[in-house]
C-alpha cells in the first residue's frame, strides 16, 4: 500500500456547534427517552391498577385538590419563557444575558420545587394507604426527581457563569439544558391530566 493521501482537511471545521450537531444533544435525548419511559411505565401502572377498583380514588380516599396542582403545572409551563430567553442568549454567546437568565431560571426551578412540595400535600392520600396512593405518589415523586435534577444542573451552570469559569463550550451545553427543561416541564401536562383531571371525568 502506498502512503496515505489527505482527502479532507478538518482544521477549518468549527469546535462549538449547537443542537443536533453537538454530542451533548444526543446524550440529553437518550436520557429523555429513559426518563420518559419511566414516567410512561408509572402512568401505565396507575391505569392498570385503576381497573382493580370500582371507584377511583377508592372509597374513603378524597380526590386530590385541583388548585395547587394546576397552579404548579401552569407555572412549569410559564417557566419556559425565561428558559427560552436563556437559550437565545446562549446561541448569541451573550455572556451577560446568559448570567441574567441563568439566575432567573434557577429561581424558577426553586419555585417548581416549592410548588411540588405543596402539591404533595394536595394529593390527599399517603403512598402506603392503598394501591391508588402508591400509584399517585410514584408518578408525582418520579417527576419531582427530574425537577430536582434540572434545578441542580441549572444551578451548577449559574455558579460556573457567575464565578467567571464559563467557557465557549458551555453555550451549546446551556442550549441542551434548555431542551431538557422543556422536556421536564411539558411531560408533566399529561401526568397532571391523568392524576388530577381524569378521575374527576370518569
Amino acid at each position, binding site marked *: *500500500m502506498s502512503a496515505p493521501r489527505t482527502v479532507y482537511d478538518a482544521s477549518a471545521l468549527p469546535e462549538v456547534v449547537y443542537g443536533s450537531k453537538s454530542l451533548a444533544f444526543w*446524550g440529553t435525548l437518550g436520557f429523555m427517552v429513559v426518563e420518559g*419511559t419511566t414516567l410512561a411505565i408509572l402512568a401505565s401502572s396507575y391505569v392498570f391498577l385503576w381497573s382493580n377498583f370500582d371507584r377511583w380514588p377508592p372509597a374513603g380516599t378524597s380526590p386530590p385538590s385541583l388548585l395547587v396542582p394546576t397552579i404548579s403545572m401552569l407555572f412549569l409551563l410559564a417557566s419556559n419563557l425565561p428558559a427560552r430567553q436563556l437559550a437565545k442568549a446562549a446561541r448569541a454567546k451573550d455572556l451577560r444575558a446568559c448570567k441574567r437568565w441563568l439566575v432567573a431560571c434557577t429561581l424558577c426551578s426553586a419555585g417548581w420545587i416549592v410548588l411540588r412540595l405543596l402539591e404533595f400535600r394536595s394529593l390527599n392520600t399517603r403512598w402506603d394507604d392503598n394501591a391508588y396512593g402508591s400509584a399517585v405518589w410514584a408518578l408525582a415523586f418520579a417527576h419531582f426527581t427530574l425537577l430536582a435534577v434540572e434545578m441542580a444542573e441549572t444551578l*451548577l451552570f449559574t455558579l460556573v457563569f457567575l464565578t467567571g469559569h464559563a467557557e465557549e463550550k458551555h453555550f451549546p451545553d446551556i442550549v441542551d439544558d434548555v431542551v431538557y427543561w422543556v422536556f421536564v416541564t411539558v411531560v408533566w401536562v399529561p401526568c397532571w391530566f391523568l392524576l388530577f383531571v381524569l378521575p374527576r371525568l370518569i
Partner: protein
Amino acid sequence: MKREAEVPRSALHADPAEDARDLRRLERTWSPERGLWGWLTSVDHKSIARRYVATALVSFVLAGINALVMRVQLARPESHVLGPDAYNQYFTTHGTAMMFLFAVPIMEAVGIYFVPLMVGTRNVAFPRLNALGYWTFLVATIFLWASFYANVGPDAGWTAYVPLSGPQFSPGKRVDTWAQMITFTEVSALIGAVEIITTAFKQRAPGMSLNRIPLFVWAEVVTAFMILFAMSTIATASMMLAMDRLIGTHFFNPAEGGDALLWQHLFWFFGHPEVYIIFIPATGMVSAMLPAFTRRPVFGYTAIVLSLIGTGFIGFGLWVHHMFATAVPWLGSSFFTASSVMIAVPSGIQVLCWIATVWDGRPRLATPMLFILGFLVLFVIGGLTGVMIASVPFDLQMHDTFFVVAHFHYVLIGGAVFPLFGAFYYWFPKVTGRMLGERLGKWNFWLFFAGMNVTFFPMHFLGLLGMPRRVYTYSPDLGWGPLNMTATVGAFVIALSVLVFFANVARSLARGAPAGDDPWGADSLEWATASPPPPYNFRYPPVVQGRAALWSRTPDAPVVTGLRTDKPEILMTTLLDAEPESRHVHPQPTIWPLVTAIGLSVLLLSLIYTPWGLIWGAAAVSIGLIGWGWPDHHRGARLEERG
C-alpha cells in the same frame, strides 16, 4: 491563547523527524496517566471495555460453578448436596448473574470496544459517563456475589415474581439485594446504550453513510435502542418492588388493590426484549466474522439490517407469551401467539442470509467459523422449540418445566454464547496483539458443542415427562434419574471446554503468535490499525469508500488530517451521510466518575435499609456530580480571561 497558526495539527509529513515528533505529541495527548491513578481515572473505551469483559467473565465462571453444583444436586434423586433454601439461592443467583452481570454487559462491552474502532473514531461519545457505567457495574457484581456467599443471596428466582418476592413471603433482605442490584446494572446498561447510539450516529468516519455501517454496529445500535426502553422498565419495576418492601407501598399487594400480574407484565415487557438484547449483538458478531471466513461480503446486507430493526420492534410485542398460564384473555393470548411466531420471520431471514453467505463463499474452518456453524445448528433448535411454546395449548403443558429450561439455554447459549466465543477467537488478536491457539480452540469448540447438547437436549424429555424447573430434588420412582445424570455429565463437559478456553488465553498471553494488524484478512475498520490499537485508535481518521471498508479501500488509503494533536480532538460527522461537520474536544481522564459511582452506591445500598438513604445518597452523588461538572480549563479557555 495560541494563535491559529501555532496550533499543532495532524498532517502528512514528508520529513520523518517531523512525522515522529507529531506522532509523539498525539500519543502524549491520548495516553492515560501511568500507575494506579491512571487506571482509576482512565476514560479510554478500550481500557473500560476490557474491564467490563473481565468482570463479566468472572460472573460467567461463578454462575457456571453455581450451575455445576445444582447439576450435582439433581444428578440423582433425593440428593443432599444442597438443601431447598440453598438451592433457591443457587438458581436465582445463577440466572440473575448470567443475565444481568454476564450476558447483557458483555455484549455491550464488546460494542464499547469495537463500535468506535469499526466506525473509525478515537473514543466513545461520553468517555466519563462510560467510566461511571463500568464502576456501577463493578459495584453490582461485587454486591451480588458478596451477598450470595454471605447467605443473603436472592432466592425468589431471577424473575422475582410477587407475591413470593413481596414483604409477606420474603422477609429479610435477600430480595432487596436483587432489586438494588438490578437498579445498578440498569444504570450501567443505559449509559452504555446512550454511548453506543451517539458514537454510531455522530462519530462515523467520513464516507460511512448509513448504508455502509458495519452490521455489528447496526446490531449494537438496535440493541441500544431496545435497552433504552426495556431497562428503564425493569429499573422502574424493581424500584416499585423495593418500595413495596421498604416503605409499604401496595403496587403488588392484592389486599390493598395492588396486582401481582402487574409485576409480571412489567417484568416481561423488559424480560422478553432482554433475550433480543443478548441475541441481536450476537447476530452482529456472526455478520462481522462471516466475511473473513467465507471470503465474501455477507449476503443480503439490507435484508439483515431490516431484520435487526424488525426484531427490535417485534421483540417488544410478545411479552405476554411468558404469561399464558395466567388469566390473560384468550384474544390477548392469540395475539401474542401470532406475534411470537412472527418474530421467527426476521430471525429466519438472517439465518438464510448467513447460510447463503457460507454457500456462496469459500468457507475456512478456523475456530470462529466453527462457533458460527455451531451457533446456526443450536439456534435453529432453540428457535424451533420457541415456536412450539408460542402455541398456548402446548405452552400450558410445558410451562415451568425443564422443556422451557432446555429451550432458553439452546437460545441463549447456542444463540449468544457460541457467537461470543467465536468473537473471542476472532477479536482476541486485535485486543492483545496475539493469536489464540487453533488446536485448543477446536477442543474448546467441540467440547462445548457436545457438552451443550448432552446437557440440554435431555431436558426436553425431562420437561415432557413433567419435571418442573426450580425443584431441588425429586423422588426416585418418577424415573427422571438417568436423564438428569446425563445432563450433569454434559455440564461437566461444558465446564471442561471453558477451562480449555482459559488455558488457551493464558497460553496465548504468555507466548501466542503475534497477530499483526489484520490476521484474518477481514473487511472492517478495526483491522486498519495496530493490534492492540494505540490510545488514539487511528493516527488519521480514515475515509470509507465502500461497505466493506478495507476491501474497497484504494491503495492510497485516503484519510482526514487537520485535527489538533495537542488536545484530544475527534471528528464529528453528519447523521445520514457522515460528512465532516465539526471537531470536538474530548474530556480528559478524571477521578469523578469513580467518586460519583461511590455516591450512587451509598444511595442504592442505604435504600435497602432506610428511606433516608435517599437524602444521604443524593448528597453523596451530588459531590461527585459537582466535581464532574466543574470545568477543568485548558489554558486560555475561560471567556472572562479572554475578555
